[in-house]
Each structure stands twice: as structure tokens, then as C-alpha cells.
């Protein structure tokens, strides 16, 4: 089929639609009476809630670290410090997402808007990576000097096995949670569920958009 044949086919399709497609004016009119939010601003409340909870959590742990600094053991201070630092990073990502939501305008050219929206979704994967990175500190914050001095070999062995395996898992997941691994079984297991499909598709689109933006320059 030649170019002009395809275009003429499309014209016929357009004419047929014009003849058979009727706007249901009453239903369309109802839309003009709705107080609708943009689909982007519908994402704002959950992000604001997460940021608020995150800030409260970070604030509490920071106060705890400062207050307990002179008396608490170093295992707790360092573990809590790492946890709070990673949570702060996650909050920064959420703030970045809010900025993108604020900046995105769906009447802008497709490439720009989609780049903002796809970036917004794809940063969610970073939050997950950071979440996994803090795994080991949940196995160390309760350590103390007396436990180490008075414990027995079984306790040491179990504790070391748990902490080392959490460190290994955290680093491995942080390094491997990448779009390139999206088809691997373990990836599918972690990111199982319909809420993750849009994130994966966004990264796919983002890669396509990045290539186009490079070509555009």
C-alpha cells in the first residue's frame, strides 16, 4: 500500500466518523458543571501526606539522636543516623515529585510534558531502592556493649548471619533494582501488582524520550 492510499484510507475513516459519531451533548454538558481536578493534582494529597509523615518521623528520630547522644550506645546512634539520612533522601525525592507535578502542564508539547510525567513516575523506583538500603540498620540499632561482651557464640553467629545477609541483600537490591532487570523473576516478585506497571512503563517511555531529546539537540 502506498503513502497516498494510506492517507486516503484515513480520510475515508474520518468521513465515516464524521457521519456516524454524535456528541451526546447532555452528557458532555455535565462535564462542564463538574468541579474537576487535574489528574496530576490528584496525586498531590498522597505525596503531601507521605512527606508530612516522613518529616514527623525524621524529626522524632533526630530529637531522639540529639537527646540520647551523650548516653546512648553508638550502635543505636549510627543505625538511627543512617536510617534518618536515607529517609531524608526519600523525602527529597517526594519533594522533587511535587515540583514536577506543579510544573507539568498538559497543554504543553507532548515531549516536554511526558518527560516530566515519566520522570515523576520513574523516581518512585529510587524510593524503593533507598527503602531496601536501610534494611541492615534494623538489625543493628539494638546492639549494645553488654550484649557483645556477655553474649555467647550462638547469639553472635545468628546476629552476624542476619546482619550480613541483610547487608548483602540491601546492596544487591540497591544495585540491581533497575529497569534493565524488569523481566527477571525476582524483580517481578518484588514489583508484583498493577501499581508497579505504570512505573515500569514510564521508565520505558523515559528511555524513548531521552533518545528523542538527544536527537532533537
Amino acid at each position, binding site marked *: 500500500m502506498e503513502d497516498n492510499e494510506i492517507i486516503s484510507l484515513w480520510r475515508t475513516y474520518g468521513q465515516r466518523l464524521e457521519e456516524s*459519531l454524535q*456528541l451526546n451533548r447532555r452528557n458532555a454538558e455535565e*462535564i462542564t458543571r463538574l468541579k*474537576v481536578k487535574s489528574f496530576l493534582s*490528584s496525586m498531590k494529597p498522597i505525596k503531601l501526606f507521605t512527606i508530612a509523615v516522613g518529616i514527623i518521623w525524621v524529626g522524632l528520630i533526630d530529637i531522639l539522636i540529639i537527646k540520647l547522644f551523650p548516653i546512648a550506645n553508638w550502635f543505636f546512634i549510627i543505625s538511627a543516623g543512617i536510617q534518618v539520612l536515607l529517609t531524608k533522601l526519600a523525602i527529597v525525592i517526594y519533594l522533587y515529585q511535587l515540583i514536577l507535578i506543579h510544573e507539568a502542564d498538559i497543554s504543553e508539547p507532548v515531549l516536554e510534558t511526558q518527560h516530566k510525567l515519566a520522570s515523576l513516575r520513574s523516581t518512585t523506583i529510587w524510593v524503593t531502592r533507598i527503602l531496601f538500603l536501610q534494611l541492615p540498620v534494623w538489625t543493628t540499632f539494638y546492639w549494645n556493649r553488654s550484649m557483645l561482651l556477655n553474649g555467647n557464640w550462638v547469639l553472635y553467629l545468628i546476629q552476624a548471619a542476619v546482619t550480613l545477609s541483610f547487608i548483602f541483600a540491601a546492596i544487591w537490591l540497591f544495585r540491581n533494582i533497575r529497569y534493565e532487570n524488569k523481566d527477571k523473576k525476582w524483580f517481578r516478585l518484588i514489583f508484583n501488582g498493577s501499581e508497579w506497571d505504570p512505573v515500569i512503563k514510564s521508565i520505558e517511555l523515559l528511555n524513548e524520550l531521552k533518545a528523542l531529546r538527544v536527537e532533537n539537540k
Partner: protein
Amino acid sequence: MLSEQPAIFLSLIETNKGIIYKVANAYCMHSEDRKDLIQEIIVQLWRSFDQYNDKYKYTTWMYRIALNVAISFYRRENRRKQLTNPLPDNIFDLADENNGGETGKQISYLNQFIGELKELDKALVLLYLEEKSQQEIAEITGISETNVSTRIGRIKKILKQKFASLNA
């Protein structure tokens, strides 16, 4: 002026209903999803109507919103649930969706082939088939004119190959 707005908007939708339907059809194969997408596009057009910038043609503005909503639509988890208000059922009534005959069959193949393209390529081919100039396509998509031409060349090749494989 404020009371005139819905009337102006509705007549704009009526005049350009084909744009909305064709975009929705390219991005949604299933008729239920398509209905949702059509409604979503109209909702977002109405929402942005206040901020319409007359620097651009109405159709440029409509295409940008329709394509942005359509491309984002598949990435959303709870489509209709995310809207704050329930929406009416059918905005468009299509008297005869399956036009018969050989041309009807070819049209449905063309729609199928467009549906199989990548998200951005779908947008480009829709605008090309609507006989928009390369400048207009660049304005709507934000892709440079040279890039538009290269990409469309590639897409046309794919479409031709798909039609040729039907006859093989």
C-alpha cells in the same frame, strides 16, 4: 462571558470530535477503556479551557491535551476512581462502529497497526495522517521538524510492511 464558556466549549468539542475519538482509538484497543479515555480527555480539555492560549490554534491545543492525556492514561492505576466526581456514561454515540466492506476492513487494519506502534510514534502517525504540516507536528509534539520527518519516514515504512504482510 462566563455563562457562554460551556456553550463555546461544547461547540468546539462537537466540531473536533474526530480528533478526540481518533486519539482515544489509537491508544485504547478496548472499548470500555476507550470510553473512559474519551471522558478523561474531555474533562481535561474543559479544565484547561480557561488557560487556552490563543497563540496556538484550537486544534493544536486540543491535540496536545488529548495526546498528553492518552499517553499518560495507560500509566495510571485507578483510572476512573481518581476522578473526584462520577462521570456520565457515553459522551460519544457511534452509530455504526464496524463499517463493513473491504475499505472498512482496511481501516480496521490501519487502526490495529497504529495501535501496535510505540506511544510517541502513534502520536506522530496520527498527526501525519491528519495531514498536519511538519511545523504543526513539531509544535504539538515538541519534536524538531527534522526529527519529525525522519521518524515519520520510519513509521510509514513499518505501516507499509504490515499491509504488505497481509497480502503475503
